[in-house]
């Protein structure tokens, strides 16, 4: 199948190095301490953060740092076919773990010993790249909740189809069965916190693909920073100062 036409356009009209349209909104769940909606094209994710708060299960309490918990799930209506998704299936357990590990790396947990931070992410609409969208939404929500972090974490995926590296795969490209590299970085510190790949890639091409995904992460980081700034300004305005 032709995923990139000889004219250099992908199936949805993007060029190989282009991302889908991204949109973010802070404060979608007023009950939560911090929350955000993040969209990458038709992928739409909502994240809510509770905490730092008292540890619910005492036995899990850590005396030197905060306990970070993450729960990922997909809404039944997020894909075309309305399948009942059992909670805690392998895929969502894995993604929960990935998100938790990625974020734990940048939260300054040692500042909040004996407390717990809960991150809930739910996919409202899935069109490829949910993993990245979840991480981006969660970063925003954490920032909104005012949880101390080393840096923002942003994530983006890239693939390799028709001998072309492609940025930000959508569902159709994702299901082509080609390699799908998800990268998460700390943009200011210029560090990689997440690197995952499905399928196989020759090593020299992998470098290009990772590079491309990193560029994507940086672009997302800039956008997220803008959103945060805007949000802060708004808060400032509301306070009337």
């Amino acid at each position, binding site marked *: 199948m032709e995923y990139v*036409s*000889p*004219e250099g*356009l992908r*199936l*949805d*009209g*993007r060029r190989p190095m*282009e991302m*889908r*349209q991204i949109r973010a909104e802070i404060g979608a769940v007023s009950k939560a301490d911090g929350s955000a909606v993040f969209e990458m*094209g*038709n992928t739409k994710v909502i994240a809510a953060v509770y905490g730092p708060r008292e540890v619910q299960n005492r036995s899990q309490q850590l005396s030197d740092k905060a306990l970070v918990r993450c729960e990922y799930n997909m809404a039944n209506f997020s894909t*075309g*076919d309305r399948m009942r998704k059992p909670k805690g299936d392998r895929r969502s357990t894995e993604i929960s773990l990935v998100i938790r590990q990625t974020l734990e790396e940048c939260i300054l947990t040692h500042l909040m010993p004996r407390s717990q931070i809960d991150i809930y992410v739910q996919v409202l609409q899935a*069109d490829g790249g949910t993993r990245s969208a979840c991480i981006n939404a969660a970063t925003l929500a954490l920032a909104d909740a005012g949880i101390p972090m080393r840096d923002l974490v942003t994530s983006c995926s890239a693939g390799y189809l028709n*001998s072309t590296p492609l940025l930000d795969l*959508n569902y*159709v490209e994702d299901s082509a069965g080609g390699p799908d590299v998800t990268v998460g970085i700390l943009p200011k510190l210029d560090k990689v916190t997440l690197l995952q790949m499905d399928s*196989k*890639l*020759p090593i020299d*091409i992998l470098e290009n693909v990772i590079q491309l995904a990193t560029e994507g992460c940086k672009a997302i980081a800039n956008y997220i920073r803008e959103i945060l700034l805007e949000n802060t300004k708004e808060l400032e305005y509301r306070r009337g100062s």
Partner: protein
Amino acid sequence: MLHNKSFVKKTKGGKVMKQVREHYLRDDIYCGAPSCTVCDSSGARLSSSASTILVVDTNVVLNQIDLLENSAIDDVVVLSIVLEEVKNKNMSVYNRLRAICSNSNRKFFVFSNEYHRDTYVKEMSGETKNDRNDRAIRVATQWYQKHLGGAVKVLLVTNDKENKRKASEEGICAETVESYVKSLDRPDLLDLLVRPSSEDAEMADVEDHRPSKRKVIYSEHKPMSEITSGLHRGIYHQGKLRVNRYNPFEAYVGSESIGDEIIIYGRSNMNRAFDGDIVAVELLPEDQWQGEKSLSIVGEEDEDEDEDVHLAPNSADDAPRTTPQQGSTGVINAGSSRPSGRIVGIIKRNWHSYCGSLEPMPMPGGSRGVAYALFVSKDRRFPKIRIQTRQLENLLDKRIMVSVDSWDRQSRYPSGHYVRTIGDIGDRDTESEVVLIENDINSRPFSAQVLACLPPLPWSVSSEDLSIPFRQDLRHLRVFSVDPPGCKDIDDALHCYALPNGNFEVGVHIADVTNFVFPGTPLDDEASQRGTSVYLVERRIDMLPKPLTEDVCSLRSDVERLAFSVIWVPSADYWEFIFSKKISTLAFCIWVHTHRFALALFMYVQEMTPEADIISTRYTKSVIKSAAALSYVEAQARMDDSRLMDPVTTDLRNMNSLAKKMRLRRIERGALTLASAEVKFQIDTETHDPLDIGMYQIREANQMVEEFMLAANVSVAQQILKSFPLCSLLRRHPTPTKEMLEPLLRVSAAIGLNLDVSSSKALADSLDLAVGGDPYFNKLIRILATRCMSQAVYFCSGDLSPPEYHHYGLATPLYTHFTSPIRRYADVIVHRLLAASIGISKLPSVFQDRLQLTSIADNLNYRHRNAQMAGRASVELHTLIYFRKRPTDTEARIVKIRSNGFFVFVPKYGIEGPVYLTTRAEKGSGEWYVDEQEQKIKKMDGSFSYSILQTVQIHMEVVEPQPNRPKLQLTLI
């Protein structure tokens, strides 16, 4: 600008789902005109001086692709919506259009109108998809007009009346193809046009002798919805139609749903389907299943078509299929007859261009005008095609190419249009060209890009080549090659060295083609497309450009060349083991420079002991210097001449004795000695006419070289599979099924021969025992056995499970092709795999992608098969030229019995053809009847009978029953 498309789609499971896709509209898509001031013109393809720019509609592309391929048509804008529609309707036209668009000599520009901000149109409610796409084309045309201003005329070319009318209303210049081509004032282009079917009435002049012409001849094709539901309910069966090469009125549809082949008799049951079409078939009621008709040699319809003389087929794939005979023996056994059916619909057409000539006809009165003619394809599987032409007088004595456009219910023949002229009928070059075209062989010269990949010429081994650490200097070895006489593409050479202890070191050196052909280069792409060199009787079509084929890669004598060699070293343990077991036959040491010989030893030892690792194998790239390039005849003569004691001759003798032992061992494992009737021409060097033909003689020298090559291939197969279990390119030969061997068993039963076909070993043994009254008998049986089997095929190891890798004919679990990289692309791939597996180069990225590898393997199989067919067709052509001047009487053997005659095989010339006992007029008079049990045809009164494998005297002569279709006729003396 973002926009969401939403549509509903039916999934495989039959569920209807709503799909939503993003659709981005852009402002950076350029118009492709270099004169444009607004757009970035770096990617512009249209000519700057163009006064008219054409925008083509989908129906124009689909129907008039032959016209578009003509270089007279240029400055065309192809819209992406048109490409998409074409892709959905006809993949082959799409590929041709893409080829034109990417050809830098043609000025075709692809405009992605679907992604352009100003030309995207949204489906309106109530608008069909088709109307929406037509509107998109008009909007894009209008955009072009506005964008380019008055400088250039933008012309929409469409054959859709409605679209044209709406375009004119919207102020767009629109014309039909006919009127546009007429305005170009090029009468030769007009012939390329496909006629719309409304002009059918005029065609009556061609067929006015058929008063019933207007009546409906064929039943209607069922609508697609009905076919789909019929397929679901199991009343229709889907499959690819294959027309019998030898009888165009008989076709088969291999159906998965009933697990058998459905036979289709006659044109009306075939219902306008062509060979290769995907069709839907309805089974006929069982009492109409016929077994008998096909068994007479002659076609059953009133047309004067019948069997031709052909080369004897080499495998089951070439041979005409036959059905188990019945009825004729008087035993009616309806249960065992094969299912017959009729075609109710065509799911996918496989129309392409066909080669042939026009049926001779008187020139119509006003010769300048338009004439209608019937085109007769050279390939008998295709029906006659009606075409319209303005240049009838030029075409009558020419071989031409014709495309099919349509076939409606009222006409007996499909209608088509002229594509191009190949040359004069009967001219040898023309006929060879036809052979190439029919087999889809690219004989065009190599393009400049491809030639640019060649190393600078004249090429010689440089010090750089020698300094590469992995390249071993083997120039001191006495290497020589043995090939057919006159061979210029020498890709293998051997050496054999007597060691002081009485053992031998044997080496095989294969031309190092991959040192010059790098993956991903235009040269590599071209070679992978061509797949193989093609050998015709009088010429060779190379896979690689001539400098590589004949010079740089060819292991010629007395020049230094790069090679790929392999070395095996038997360890001390090995010798202890050999001597302790006192295996005298193995008491030679082999230090092999090619893999094959080593493998033979390796496997033998493996059978006896678990210490299979006692021989270490080494593959290396090397530099060699061939001492002699011998022909098979020379090599044989040297070996036979006991006076000669020079080093090369001694090497040859040593190798020959080794090869004999290896051969013996291979046969013990159950390898089949198969036979085919290969013929050889002696060609006049001046006129290129055949002077003499005869069976190809197999000498010991041939067998010797073959033996080493086989062993090499087997061992490389092991090596690459070990390193790359999922992406190796191997070659397998499927075990023949019981049904495939059925004809062989019937023949052997009739002559009282007991063949055991339970395994290849059993078959090989019983073939050895089959010695009849005369020397040729055994070979004949082997030829019959060979043609019952299917051909070996390339495959990607990841696609099948290891037991399926088996090569039946050679009785080895693994096999591949390694030894002829100059003329086979498969070998080039295997060279790369081997180089990667020994760590001297990286594995190219193709191998990461199994789908791509599989498609390469499929292409190689296709090309390989076509090359063989072309070779055979070329031999047939030359046989015909040879016998045209020399009617001959000769001996022949009966190989197949039919109700009105039999097929004979002429060993001397390797051809096979029908001999009629009854003339066509008295067909079915019942004078002869067939005894199925004994495979005999007997006269009713019992006075006369012919049985299978019997020797008969026949007369061979070229006759021309239909003009322009000469054929060889065999008659009984």
